[in-house]
C-alpha cells in the first residue's frame, strides 16, 4: 500500500486534513461540512456542470466548484461567506428559471434536493419575468421511466449513469444550450435493466418511476431496511410502505460492499408479489380431488396426526423435507432441526448445483471471492456464468473493475452486455466449460508455471491431457491467451454459476476450478479466488444451514439421507410416505431432472408452505399460507457469503403466517419444548451451534451485514492444501478443446468468431 499523503487546509476556519487528490467537496464531507451538489454523484467522476457547490477559495478571483477543485496545502475555503452565499443563490436562481415549481403535484416533492436547497439557499421571490420553457409533461422514455423535461436542471447524472456506470446505451442529451433536453437515440425507448436507478439519482422530479407515479407522498412513507430477494446478490433495499400498510416502492439502501448503491429493475420493481391478490390467505386441506379452506388448528391437527401415523407405520425414514432457497436462515435452520431432531430423518435437501468431488467441509473455505473484491482483482474470469442475466448488479461491479484496469476473460456462451469488454473469450458450449478449465490447467502445468500441484499423479494426468489436445486450432490460441493472462495477474477472481456444474460435461467443475485457482496461487486469497454465483437470495444459507442429506448445519458431518432427486423418485417411486416442503416448488423441476410426476403420487402426506398456489401446492394434502420477506424478520446469506438482516415492513397479510412461526408450532406439537421464538434468538442459536457463523449476532450485523467469519479471516498463507486437490483429474478425451467437435464449432459460429 502506498502511503497516503495528507494535505492541510481550512474550511470555514476549521483546520482539516484531507487526502491528496481529494476535491474540496470530498474533504468537506469527511469533515462533516455540508456543501450542496446536483451534478456530482459520489459514484461518478466530477463534472462541474451545475455550479451549486460554488465556494469561496482565498486567493482565487472567483468562486470555485467544490466538486471539481482539488484541495491544496494551505487552501482557505469558505462555504458560508457572503461570496459563497451569493454565488449559490445566483446559481439557484438560474436553475429555477425554467423550473415549473410544481412541487405540489410532483412525486419528488418532500425528498427533492432542488426543493430543499431552494429553501436553504434560494430567494423567496423570483425575478424572472419572461416566459418559462413549456414542454409536454411525463414523456414516457421507456417502460419504467417518465421524464418531465420542464423540471430537469440538466445535471447529467442520468446520462452519466449510462456512460460511466452501465457503459451502455442509455439516456443522452439532445440539442444544446437552452434547448437541451434528456432523451434517447431516435426511435429507441430507454430500455435497460438498470433504468430505475436514474429516478433515484435524479436530484429533481424530472425522472420518475412510472410504477410509483402519484402513489404516495414521501412524508407518508415508512422506510424499512431490508434485502432484495430476487437474486443472490442481496442488494440492500428500503421497503417503503405508505402509512405502514401498502408497499409502494423499493429504494436503494447503499451498501458499498454489495450493491454500490445501485439496484436492478428486477429488484426495484419486483414488489408486486407481496400484496398480490393471488397470495394464499388460508390453510387448505385436501378433501378428495380438491383443496378446501381450513383453520390453522385443523391444518396443524391434520399434519401432526398423519405425520405420527406415518412415522409409526413406516418409520422416520419414510419422511423427508425439501426447502426452498428464498427462506431465511432461521427458517431453514428450524426446518432441518425439526426433521433431524424431532422427526429423526436425514432426508433433507434443496435444489442446488453439484459440488462434484469437493468434500462438504471444504465448500465454504474455497469460496473466498467477494463482490467488493472484484475491484481489487487484476483479472476476472467468468466460468460458465452470466451475471448480466442472473446477478445483474455483479455486472456493474465487473464493469467498474474493468474501468479501473482489470481484464475480463469469458469462458462459455456469449454474454451480450460483457462480450465486448473481454480481453479473451473461450466461446465454448456450456458443457465444455470444465474442459476449457482443464485445458488451461494442463497448459499451466506444461509451462511449468502451475503452483501448488504436488502430486505426481496429477501432474502426469495433466501432461497426458495436454498431449491429447490439438494445439493447432484457433481456440488453442485463446487458451494460450487466457493462460498468459492467468500467469501475469496478481489477483484473479473466478466466478462460476452454481448450475453450470450440473450441465453434462462439467461434473467436477468446482474441483477443476479449485485446482486452477491453486495453480495460479489464488485459492483462498481473501476477496478474490473462487466465487460461486448462486441461484437465489439464500442459496448459500440453505447450504450453510445443512439443508442437504450430505451434511448438517455448518457443513458438519451427519448420516446420509435421501437427495433431492431421490426424494422425487429418481429410482422409480419415491421411497417417502410424507414430504414437507418449505417454500419450494420441486414439481416444477421434475422435467428438468428427467422424472415423471407419478413418482410422488403415492405420498400419503405432502405439506407445502407457500406464498402462492404452485404446482407442488396443487398436489399437496395440506397447504399452509406463509408470509413474504417483507412481513418477517431474519437473515439471508448472499452469493459472497455475507449474512444480512431483513426486518418486517408490514404485518403478515391476514390469514398468513411467517414460516418460522409455522415450523415452531409444528415443533411444539411434535413435543419440542420451544423456548426461542423470535428471529434474533434463533440466529443467536445458529451462531452458537454453527462454527461457520460464530461471532455473528443481530447486534453486530448492523445495516451492512457481515461476511461469514471464515471469509473475513481468510488468509492464503495459512491455507492447508487439502489432499483432494491433489487427486489425479478425470481424463476428458471426449471433450477436447480445439479438436473437431460439432458442438464446439456451432458455439464458435454462433458467437461470430472465425476459427482462423
Amino acid at each position: 500500500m502506498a502511503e497516503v499523503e495528507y494535505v492541510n487546509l481550512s474550511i470555514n476556519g476549521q483546520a482539516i486534513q484531507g487526502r491528496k487528490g481529494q476535491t474540496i467537496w470530498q474533504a468537506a464531507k469527511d469533515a462533516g461540512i455540508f456543501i450542496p451538489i446536483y451534478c456530482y454523484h459520489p459514484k461518478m467522476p466530477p463534472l462541474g456542470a451545475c455550479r451549486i457547490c460554488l465556494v469561496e477559495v482565498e486567493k482565487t478571483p472567483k468562486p470555485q466548484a467544490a466538486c471539481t477543485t482539488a484541495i491544496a496545502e494551505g487552501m482557505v475555503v469558505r462555504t458560508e461567506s457572503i461570496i459563497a452565499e451569493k454565488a449559490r443563490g445566483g446559481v439557484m436562481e438560474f436553475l429555477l428559471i425554467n423550473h415549473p415549481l410544481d412541487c405540489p403535484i410532483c412525486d419528488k416533492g418532500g425528498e427533492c434536493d432542488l426543493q430543499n436547497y431552494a429553501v436553504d439557499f434560494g430567494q423567496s421571490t423570483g425575478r424572472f419575468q419572461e416566459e418559462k420553457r413549456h414542454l409536454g409533461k411525463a414523456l414516457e422514455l421507456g417502460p419504467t421511466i417518465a421524464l418531465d423535461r420542464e423540471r430537469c436542471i440538466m445535471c447529467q447524472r442520468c446520462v452519466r449513469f449510462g456512460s460511466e456506470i452501465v457503459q451502455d446505451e442509455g439516456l443522452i442529451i439532445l440539442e444544446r444550450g437552452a434547448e437541451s433536453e434528456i432523451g434517447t437515440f431516435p426511435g429507441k425507448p430507454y430500455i435497460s435493466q438498470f433504468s430505475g436507478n436514474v429516478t433515484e439519482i435524479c436530484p429533481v422530479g424530472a425522472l420518475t418511476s412510472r410504477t410509483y407515479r402519484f402513489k404516495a407522498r414521501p412524508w407518508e412513507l415508512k422506510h424499512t431496511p431490508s434485502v432484495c430477494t430476487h437474486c443472490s446478490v442481496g442488494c440492500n433495499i428500503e421497503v417503503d410502505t405508505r402509512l405502514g400498510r401498502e408497499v409502494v416502492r423499493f429504494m436503494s439502501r447503499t451498501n458499498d460492499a454489495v450493491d454500490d448503491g445501485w439496484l436492478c429493475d428486477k429488484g426495484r420493481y419486483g414488489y408486486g408479489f407481496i400484496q398480490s391478490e393471488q397470495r394464499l390467505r388460508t390453510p387448505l386441506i385436501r378433501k378428495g380431488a380438491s383443496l378446501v379452506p381450513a383453520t390453522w388448528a385443523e391444518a396443524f391437527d391434520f399434519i401432526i396426526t398423519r405425520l405420527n401415523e406415518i412415522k409409526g407405520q413406516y418409520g422416520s425414514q419414510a419422511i423427508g423435507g425439501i426447502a426452498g432457497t428464498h427462506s431465511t436462515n432461521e427458517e431453514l435452520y428450524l426446518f432441518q432441526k425439526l426433521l433431524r431432531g424431532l422427526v429423526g430423518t436425514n432426508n433433507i435437501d434443496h435444489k442446488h448445483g453439484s459440488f462434484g468431488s469437493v468434500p462438504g467441509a471444504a465448500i465454504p473455505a474455497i469460496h473466498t471471492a467477494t463482490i467488493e473484491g472484484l475491484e481489487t482483482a487484476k483479472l476476472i474470469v467468468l466460468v460458465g456464468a452470466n451475471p448480466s442475466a442472473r446477478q445483474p448488479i455483479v455486472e456493474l461491479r465487473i464493469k467498474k473493475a474493468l474501468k479501473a484496469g482489470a481484464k475480463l476473460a469469458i469462458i462459455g456462451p456469449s454474454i451480450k452486455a460483457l462480450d465486448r469488454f473481454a480481453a479473451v473469450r473461450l466461446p465454448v458450449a456450456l458443457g465444455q466449460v470444465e474442459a476449457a478449465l482443464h485445458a488451461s490447467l494442463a497448459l499451466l502445468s506444461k509451462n511449468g508455471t502451475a503452483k501448488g500441484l504436488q502430486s505426481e499423479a496429477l501432474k502426469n494426468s495433466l501432461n497426458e491431457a495436454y498431449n491429447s489436445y490439438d494445439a493447432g486450432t484457433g481456440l488453442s490460441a485463446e487458451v494460450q491467451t487466457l493462460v498468459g493472462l492467468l500467469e501475469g495477474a496478481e489477483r484473479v477472481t473466478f466466478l462460476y454459476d452454481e448450475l453450470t456444474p450440473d450441465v453434462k460435461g462439467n461434473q467436477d467443475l468446482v474441483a477443476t476450478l479449485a485446482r486452477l485457482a491453486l495453480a495460479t496461487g489464488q485459492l483462498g486469497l481473501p476477496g478474490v479466488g473462487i466465487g460461486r454465483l448462486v441461484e437465489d437470495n439464500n442459496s448459500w444459507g440453505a447450504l450453510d444451514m445443512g439443508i442437504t442429506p450430505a451434511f448438517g448445519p455448518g457443513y458438519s458431518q451427519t448420516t446420509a439421507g435421501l437427495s433431492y432427486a431421490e426424494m422425487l423418485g429418481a429410482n422409480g417411486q419415491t421411497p417417502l410416505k410424507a414430504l414437507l416442503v418449505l417454500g419450494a416448488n420441486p414439481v416444477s423441476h421434475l422435467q428438468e431432472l428427467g422424472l415423471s410426476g407419478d413418482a410422488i403420487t403415492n405420498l400419503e402426506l405432502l405439506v407445502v408452505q407457500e406464498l402462492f398456489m404452485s404446482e407442488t401446492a396443487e398436489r399437496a394434502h395440506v397447504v399452509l399460507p406463509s408470509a413474504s420477506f417483507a412481513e418477517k424478520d431474519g437473515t439471508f446469506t448472499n452469493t459472497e457469503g455475507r449474512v444480512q438482516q431483513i426486518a418486517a415492513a408490514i404485518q403478515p397479510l391476514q390469514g398468513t403466517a411467517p414460516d418460522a412461526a409455522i415450523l415452531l408450532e409444528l415443533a411444539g406439537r411434535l413435543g419440542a419444548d420451544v423456548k426461542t421464538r423470535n428471529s434474533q434468538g434463533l440466529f443467536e442459536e445458529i451462531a452458537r451451534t454453527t462454527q461457520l457463523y460464530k461471532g455473528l449476532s443481530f447486534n453486530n450485523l448492523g445495516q451492512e451485514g457481515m461476511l461469514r467469519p471464515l471469509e473475513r479471516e481468510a488468509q492464503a498463507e495459512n491455507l492447508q492444501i487439502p489432499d483432494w486437490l491433489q487427486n489425479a483429474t478425470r481424463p476428458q478425451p471426449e471433450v477436447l478443446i480445439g479438436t473437431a467437435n460439432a458442438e464446439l464449432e456451432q458455439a464458435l459460429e454462433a458467437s461470430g468468431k472465425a476459427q482462423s
Partner: protein
Amino acid sequence: MIEKMDKLEIRSQEYKLSEATRQEIVELVKKYPSSRSAILPALHIVQAQFGFVPVEPMAELAEMLGILKGDVEQVVTFYRMYNQNPVGKFHVKICDSISCYLRGSDELIQHGLQRLGTRLNEVSGDGQVSISKIECLAACGAAPCLQVNDEYMYNVQPEQLDEILDTLKTAKENPYYIP
C-alpha cells in the same frame, strides 16, 4: 411533439452507408490514435452521402467507431452543421451568432422564411431551398452573413435575400459557386 414524430419518421427511413462512404470513413479513422476521435469529420462524410444524417447510418457509424449510438446522436444534435433532416438543393444558412444578431439576422431570417413560405429547416415544396440558422461563420466584419451551401454571402440585407431566394428557386447549379 407531433412535429418531432414527423421528423423522426423521415430520419428513420431506410438509409444505408454506401460502400464508398464506409471506405472513406475507414481511411479517415486510420489518421487518429483513437477511432472515436474521428466522429466529427466522419459525420461530415455521412452527411455528404445523404445531405443530412439519418438514423440508421448513425448506428452504423457508432459500430465503426466503437462508440455508443447515443453518443453519435448527442454529437449530431449538438452541432448545427449536421442536418437532422433533409435540406433543399440549396441550403441557405443564416448566421444568428452575436455580431450578425446585432446587425439584424433575426429579422433577416424571418423575412426569408416569409418570402419562401416555409418554416425554419423546412424545404420548399419544389425541393429547391431551405433556410436554417447557423453558428458564427467567422465573417463578423461583414455581418449579417449567410452561406448558400458552401458559398459565403456578406452584408446581406432583406432585399438582397429576396433576390438570392428568387435566383435559387430556378437555379440548376449553385449560382454563387466560386471555383
